[in-house]
């Protein structure tokens, strides 16, 4: 399966198991979503469980909160993460705090799915990575898969979770992993072990990172598309790096991170989002707080630049193998 099919399968499995799971969003019904992630679900589960919505992101999330408060488990789709901003107030001020402010009387068990990240010539309004905004908010979980297998297991766990979850789907790797070389032939999930996705139910617990490549020279913390770019770069350069795919940013698997950095003594953080105030800043602060006496070099941050995503120069913006490679050399200098 590719990642879109895995995500589709997760929703189908959960709708089968739990009649309270519903899917809603712009174009998700009859058409099956502009990325086809919800294809066939309306046919299978009917119009009252899978439906198109008006184009109002604040409405979609506000309504999903109400449905959640009633007892449903809505899985709203925001067509592109760039369009989550109109829904920000509902997510930040409402969904994230409903449990806290009502002392548990009301909860908002929604899973907001949204494709994010660049590399598809989407220009500045179809390419952004807003995860840092949500990790900064208390009360929402943030989940980002990097493989079809993980996407399905994590989405199932997210739908089962009783807290609001933001589930960002790295659209650059919907169809295959990406090594960061935009001018080389694209890979396909069918040739990748993580593309072997079981049809039925399984879950991957939120808050558990994956060590995608064990190593001793340094630790790379990444998520989504950047896991693949980092891995390809490290392999090209034949560096004995340990790569940790965080999988969920909140809650974060701090133990795996700490253990790894204490072992390797060096740490690099990679993400595609803009640098300043990004989640990489949080990661480096955490590593600095907890592993300072084990560090043999300053923590390296490899990120997108602090500009909007430019249409024609998107590959200059993207943190590719060269940027990662230079940071690796710096990190391993002495």
């Amino acid at each position, binding site marked *: 399966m590719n990642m879109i099919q895995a995500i589709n399968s997760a929703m189908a499995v959960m709708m089968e198991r739990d009649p309270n799971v519903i899917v809603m969003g712009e174009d998700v019904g009859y058409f099956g979503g502009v990325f086809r992630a919800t294809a066939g679900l309306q046919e299978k589960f009917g119009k009252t469980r899978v439906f198109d919505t008006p184009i109002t992101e604040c409405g979609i999330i506000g309504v999903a909160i109400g449905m959640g408060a009633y007892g449903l488990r809505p899985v709203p789709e925001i067509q592109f993460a760039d369009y989550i901003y109109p829904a920000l107030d509902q997510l930040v001020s409402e969904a994230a705090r409903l449990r806290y402010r009502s002392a548990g009387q009301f909860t908002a068990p929604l899973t907001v799915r949204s494709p994010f990240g660049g590399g598809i010539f989407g*220009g500045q309004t179809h390419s952004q990575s807003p995860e840092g905004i949500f990790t900064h908010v208390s009360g929402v979980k943030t989940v980002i898969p990097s493989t079809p297998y993980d996407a399905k297991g994590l989405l199932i766990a997210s739908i089962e979770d009783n807290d609001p979850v933001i589930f960002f789907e790295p659209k650059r790797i919907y169809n295959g992993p990406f090594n960061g070389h935009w001018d080389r032939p694209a890979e396909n999930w069918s040739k990748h072990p993580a593309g072997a996705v079981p049809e039925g139910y399984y879950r991957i617990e939120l808050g558990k990172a994956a060590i995608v490549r064990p190593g001793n020279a340094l630790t790379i913390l990444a998520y989504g598309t950047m896991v693949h770019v980092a891995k390809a770069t490290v392999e090209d350069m034949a560096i004995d790096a340990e790569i940790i795919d965080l999988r969920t940013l909140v809650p974060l698997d701090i133990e795996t991170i700490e253990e790894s950095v204490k072992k390797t003594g060096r740490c690099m953080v990679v993400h595609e989002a803009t640098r300043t105030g990004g989640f990489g800043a949080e990661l480096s602060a955490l590593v600095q707080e907890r592993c300072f006496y084990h560090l043999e070099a300053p923590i390296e941050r490899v990120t997108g630049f602090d500009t909007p995503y430019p249409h024609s120069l998107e590959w200059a913006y993207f943190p590719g193998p060269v940027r990662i490679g230079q940071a690796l050399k710096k990190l391993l200098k002495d």
Partner: protein
Amino acid sequence: MTADALRPNLPPLSLHVPEPRFRPGDAVDFASVEVPPAGAQPRPDTAADPASFHDLAYTLVRVLDDEGRAVGPWDPRLDPDTLRAMLRDMALVRAFDERMFRAQRQGKTSFYMKCTGEEAVAIAATHALSRDDMCFPSYRQQGILIARDYSLVQMMNQIYSNSGDNLQGKQLPIMYSSKEDGFFSISGNLATQYPQAVGWAMASAAKGDTRIAAVWCGEGSTAEGDFHSAMTFATVYKAPVILNVVNNQWAISSFSGFAGAEATTFAARAIGYGMAGLRIDGNDALAVYAATQWAAERARTNQGPTLIEHFTYRAEGHSTSDDPGQYRSAGEPGAWPLGDPIARLKAHLIAIGEWDEERHAAQDREVAERVKAAQKEAEKNGILGHGLHQPLDTLFDGVFEEMPWHLREQRQQMLDEEEASGRPWARKS
């Protein structure tokens, strides 16, 4: 869990989810679309109280009848030169769309959006506005630039993100911007331009200016909160603005019912705000012209905003990334009861003896040639995907007026990266 709450003496509730009348494979019959006769609607004085003409928000103001005659009080009585200019602009937009759509299919750019069937909406409105009025378009009003004689080559440069692109390759194709031509920078985020247009109009009023603003969004976008905030501001401050809703029946795969069309019209949104509302035949260039002219006069005489619903049809896909065959009947565009805006204006000009088939055919050839020549010219500046068109460091221009230290550092990092890449400056996009 729902079953626990069921009380035996009450019927279970049911959720209504709208469904369009036709899906792929269905035969199309638009008999239920009410098309009142042309010329039947009254034209209120532009100083009239909006409460006195609510009906105009529920019907369809039409000028051109089936024989191509212009009838009724809304006939703007345009001279033949203006009519021919509008026809030429509409034909030019269509030829431009055709060519750029093909350019995208040939891999010369990443994306394109046509406005086929909606040409009258932008062209006729622009002809009815003053050259210096500020337009806040959505992505389907390329006709505004065409009607203001903006350079076709410039438009294409933007579409190709090439070295001649005045937006430096920073925007998606078709997201033009020309302050000089009263064309506000297009956003990919739907409906955000609605309150911005109202703000521009309020500022113009506050300054005692004479310029007004006009804004366009699709019917699907009226669901966004921005639309409703804009309506409130516009009515509270009597902003000199024309609020256009282009109801082309489809928002990607969602039919207009998902924006509320099953319950009422989009023009009727005006009534709750105490605003003037008109629902017009958007495939009738004369109706678009007349309504815009009327709304502009209201705005210019401090009578406040007007909401105009342009009832039209999106004859082609949403964009080059869309396949409408997946969700709507292939028969829809052909069966659309309001016809084609270009054919209708052409028929009118022929009916009044100011045009003929030969001239029309010649014009079609001429606009196609013009577009082709412009494309050749634009491609001299490059197409997307062929090397580096903008100096790489322009990536950091325009984030702020002056570049702070962290961006200077990052710019240097990027330039170093380019050198280290082993094939500096040859970057393919």
